[in-house]
């Protein structure tokens, strides 16, 4: 079956392939949709008509029904574009999953501005900040397509509340060179790893890639800070609202005098279309923008190394 299909090349394809295998493996697994990705699940809906459930364009019901399925002992996977699954149905996430104290896995696509031509209604730079108001949610931001399968399997098996934020702009894996005498830690969340790695070339900064951002990897950050060659300069690069995890950095380093630079998507509605890459550049989180901000922060008045 899935073995006969072509190897998934996008995060969404991998999500669908893994989910279909989970539907096959465990009769407690259910998928709740709201007219997004229903074509991709069409075959599965024929095979598992009682567990592949399309509510129509009803996102409140999609999340509430997931809560009801969990109350009945099932393990629901909820899926839509991030603004519809998270901000539109926020009250349902809060009350029908968190407050009932039942589990679900929410898998979004679209990220902050994948659908750049669609405009603000289809952007979700606020999604992780919203989950930050709901204690106990696990938030995963994969960078690479091959991270999706194990993340989804572990989230479904765990039984708790998980948010998996997929993007159409997955980045390839690339080795990162460790500077001999690092002077700053750059925490790169999810797909920002590609631009961040490029940005710090020659800057004596060490990059800490983060996939699971809630709970925040506080111990990994502390270890990286303690290995710095003096000082405690931290740069946070997030592919959603800048500073979303700033309070987590503060909480991880309560006993360490440190400086923090928070980079990410800006709060202002740009009212622009174009491409995701153009939006990344406008928010200063493409490789060039990151390099400008990080070098100014780390090097202060020093001259930038050659190359940019």
């Amino acid at each position, binding site marked *: 079956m899935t073995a006969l299909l072509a190897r998934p090349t996008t995060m969404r394809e991998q999500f669908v392939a893994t989910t279909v295998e989970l539907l096959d493996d465990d009769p407690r697994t259910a998928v709740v949709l709201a007219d997004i990705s229903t074509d991709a699940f069409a075959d599965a809906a024929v095979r598992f008509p009682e567990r592949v459930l399309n509510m129509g364009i009803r996102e409140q019901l999609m999340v509430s029904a997931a809560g009801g399925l969990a109350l009945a*002992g099932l393990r629901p996977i909820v899926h839509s574009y991030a603004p519809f699954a998270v901000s539109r149905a926020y009250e349902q996430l809060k009350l029908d999953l968190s407050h009932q104290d039942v589990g679900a896995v929410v898998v979004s696509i679209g990220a902050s501005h994948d659908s750049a031509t669609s405009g603000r209604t289809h952007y979700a730079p606020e999604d992780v900040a919203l989950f930050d108001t709901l204690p106990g949610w696990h938030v995963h931001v994969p960078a690479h397509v091959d991270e999706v399968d194990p993340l989804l399997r572990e989230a479904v098996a765990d039984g708790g509340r998980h948010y998996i934020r997929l993007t159409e702009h997955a980045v390839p894996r690339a080795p990162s060179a460790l500077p001999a005498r690092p002077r700053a830690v750059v925490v790169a969340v999810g797909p920002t790893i590609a631009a961040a790695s490029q940005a710090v070339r020659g800057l004596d900064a060490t990059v800490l890639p983060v996939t699971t951002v809630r709970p925040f990897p506080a111990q990994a950050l502390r270890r990286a800070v303690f290995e710095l060659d003096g000082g405690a300069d931290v740069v946070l690069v997030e592919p959603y609202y800048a500073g979303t995890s700033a309070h987590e950095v503060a909480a991880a380093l309560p006993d360490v005098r440190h400086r923090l630079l928070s980079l990410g998507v800006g709060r202002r509605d740009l009212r622009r279309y174009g491409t995701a890459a153009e939006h990344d550049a406008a928010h200063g989180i493409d490789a060039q923008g990151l390099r400008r901000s990080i070098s100014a922060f780390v090097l202060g008045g020093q001259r930038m190394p050659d190359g940019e």
Partner: protein
Amino acid sequence: MTTTMTQAPPLPYAALNGLMSDMTGDEKHQPSATSTLDVLWVLYDSILRVDPAHTADPTRDRFFLSKGHGPVSYYAVLAAKGFIPREWLPTVGRFDSRLGYHPDRNLVPGVEISSGSLGHGLPLAVGTALGLRAQRNPARVFVLVGDAELDEGSNHEAIAYAARARLDRLTVAVIDNTSSSHGWPGGIARRFETEGWTTATIDGRDHAQIAAAFEEPHDRTPHAVIARVEPKWSTR
């Protein structure tokens, strides 16, 4: 929650007023404070297959109190039927009480959902009915909503979908005390019938009518019972 509790003998309908007094301190209760009382009593007395000694039995019927405010009637019925000890009643609303002004499923045995904010019970019930069906579980799901609660748009997502999904194990009781600010011209039942539900509109104080309405067969469709009671504002 725990599944074994000290069992007190069940109390009759006539005891409910005294149980409510344990919570309110009043000897008598206005109809507006007890709009749900008779429907709740009939459900727990003769319709729901539930047992206070086995509140986690997977095959138990589910009752979701969506209209979570004014839970005095609900707690009185739960106490009368042995789900909660009568001694809990006078503590209602205190910091360390298990009984809040809106019930919490994680604190009260036999309470299936935590409610309060309107418009969540019916959409949750749709999910539970889907989940029970997927497991070939014969349990039924009953939801209680208010006529003003139907103002919340989330209900209408659930009403439309439930009929299309043929959730025949789902029954909604609408307590109609004419409290919706803008009303439902043509009647509440029509909103459900248009979507394909079967309906019964009855006197929400008449126990025989209430029981008969819940027992009406509804093959391949969900069922709505509109229980009419005294208008909320008539006692002003």
